[in-house]
Each structure stands twice: as C-alpha cells, then as structure tokens.
C-alpha cells in the first residue's frame, strides 16, 4: 500500500497543493491536514509546506509553531516519524526547535525566485536516502528569508554529525557554509529552503525534486510497517 503523507495547511500556506500533487504523481497518497486539528489522521509522513503561515507576522514560523497540529507533528517526529519542512515549513521547524539554527533575510535583501543547484551532502536522512551522495539536483528556490544561520558551535556539530543534508553549489542567499537543508539528530526531520515539489516534472523545468520526495515516500512506507 502506498505511504500516506499529510501536508499541513496553515492560514497563509500556499504550496500545499503542489506538495499533494507531487506526492500523488510519485505514486504516494497525500492529504491536507488542518492547522487547528491536533491529530495527524494516521499519516505515515508529514510535509510542512511553503508559503507565509500567519502572514509571516513577527517572524516566519513564529506563530505557526504554536498551532495544535504542530504539537501532534512534534510527537510524531519524536516517535521517529518522517517530517520534511520546505521553505516556510523549514522556518516553522526551526522556530519550533525541531531543527537547529534560524533563517534570516537573504544577503543583499533580495527576494529570490530562481533555479538553484543543490549538492546532496548525506544520504542518511528521510529526504535523501534514495539519492546518490554528491548528486547535483536542480531545484527552485523562492524566498526572502532563507539565509541559514547558526552559532559556530551548532555549525561544528552539524558538520561533525553529518547533518548538513543539502548545500547550494552556488550560495544564492548568503547561508552559513552554503547550507540549504539540515536534519535533526534522529535524521527523520529535514528542513530545506528549495522546493522539491516544484521540480517533479520535466514540464516544470526539472524533475530533480522527485528523488527527494520519493525518498520521503520510502521512509514513510518503512515507518508505517
């Protein structure tokens, strides 16, 4: 049976249908989860999608992290369930303390909407388990506050524990160490700024996001057993 992915919808999310569509295209099952609900309806994996949850008021992700659904997502992740935060979803996961670091305004204060090339730095994560180490993937970015930052101690920890999941080949937004995505200690929670769900069909200019979301589906199927 196909793994079932829940895509969280906050007021202001705008990539939830892209994520649902991409998961279904890849043979998975997907449904939208409402931010006000406190259960995940038995899904096997969770995507926290992009957009502007709660208008990005205060800071991106700062208000969304207090949603009832996020309590459920935190318990799900604590039990080893696969969770992927994309773009604004990455910001939500850092604000919730599920991933280290923070996302600040892009260097140069530019809103970026372009294709980026990512290098897979570790295949030991729920988002990259089915990819080749060192693989270069073309995946679009679309953000203003995607400049990953953390203190030196955290950066040293991320490097030594092999928790930088993907890096920009060309550092598009000023992120420390070119970091585009990181994972938690259990490697079942991954956050990244680029949008793999928008790169799952050649008609969209790239299908390089497919192996990433396929990895999530496989991880979810394993977690479901």
């Amino acid at each position, binding site marked *: 049976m196909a793994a079932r992915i829940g895509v969280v919808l906050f007021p202001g999310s705008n990539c939830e249908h892209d994520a649902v569509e991409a998961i279904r295209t890849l043979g998975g099952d997907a449904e939208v989860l409402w931010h006000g609900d406190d259960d995940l309806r038995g899904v096997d994996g969770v995507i926290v999608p992009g957009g502007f949850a709660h208008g990005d008021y*205060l800071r991106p992700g700062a208000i969304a992290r207090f949603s009832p659904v996020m309590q459920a997502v935190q318990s799900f992740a604590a039990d080893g369930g696969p969770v992927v935060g994309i773009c604004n979803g990455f910001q939500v996961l*850092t*604000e919730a303390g599920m991933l280290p670091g923070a996302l*600040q305004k892009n*260097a*140069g204060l530019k809103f970026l909407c372009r294709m980026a090339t990512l290098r897979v730095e570790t295949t030991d994560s729920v988002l990259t388990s089915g990819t080749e180490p060192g693989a270069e993937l073309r995946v679009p970015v679309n953000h203003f506050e995607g*400049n990953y930052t953390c203190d030196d101690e955290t950066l040293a920890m991320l490097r030594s524990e092999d928790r930088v999941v993907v890096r920009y080949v060309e550092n598009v937004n000023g992120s420390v160490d070119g970091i585009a995505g990181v994972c938690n200690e259990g490697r079942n929670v991954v956050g990244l700024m680029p949008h793999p769900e928008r790169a799952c069909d050649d008609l969209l200019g790239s299908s390089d996001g497919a192996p990433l979301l396929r990895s999530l589906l496989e991880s979810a199927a394993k977690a479901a057993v």
Partner: protein
Amino acid sequence: MRFDVQVETRPRAGIADPEGSTIERSLPALGFEGITDVRVGKSFRFHVDADDEASATALVEDVCARFLTNPVIEDSTITVTEGSTV
C-alpha cells in the same frame, strides 16, 4: 497594577543584519557621513496587569524568550514602567 511595557528586539551581535548594512551603505549617497553600526530591530509596546514590577518583568521576559524573539538570532531589551494612562 498596570505597567507600560516596551520591548525592543534586534539582531544579536555577530549575526549579519542585511537590512542594517543596506541602510548604512546608502547613507553616504544621501550626504550623511560618520554613521556606522546600523542595526535594525522591532519595537513592541503593550500593557501588563500584575501585582508588582518584578512579576510584570518576569512575565515579559518569558514572553520575550518564548515568542517575541528568536534567541538564535535576536536580542531584546525590556523596559517596564508603572502605568500611565497613555
């Protein structure tokens, strides 16, 4: 008792502030010289009802740490004064 509260948040020392540096770079073009170290933050003003200043301050510190700032990238300054009617 009612207290007036002002919270100011700004990027922590050592954290890049692209907004501040963009403003700083544009100052000479406008003829302003000698201005350095521009940092951009936010200011919050609200009222707190509490028994005394210490408990009002403790409450605001908690709100700051858990909600108004992201301690990874931001610092804050809290000012609590006994309430005026403003």
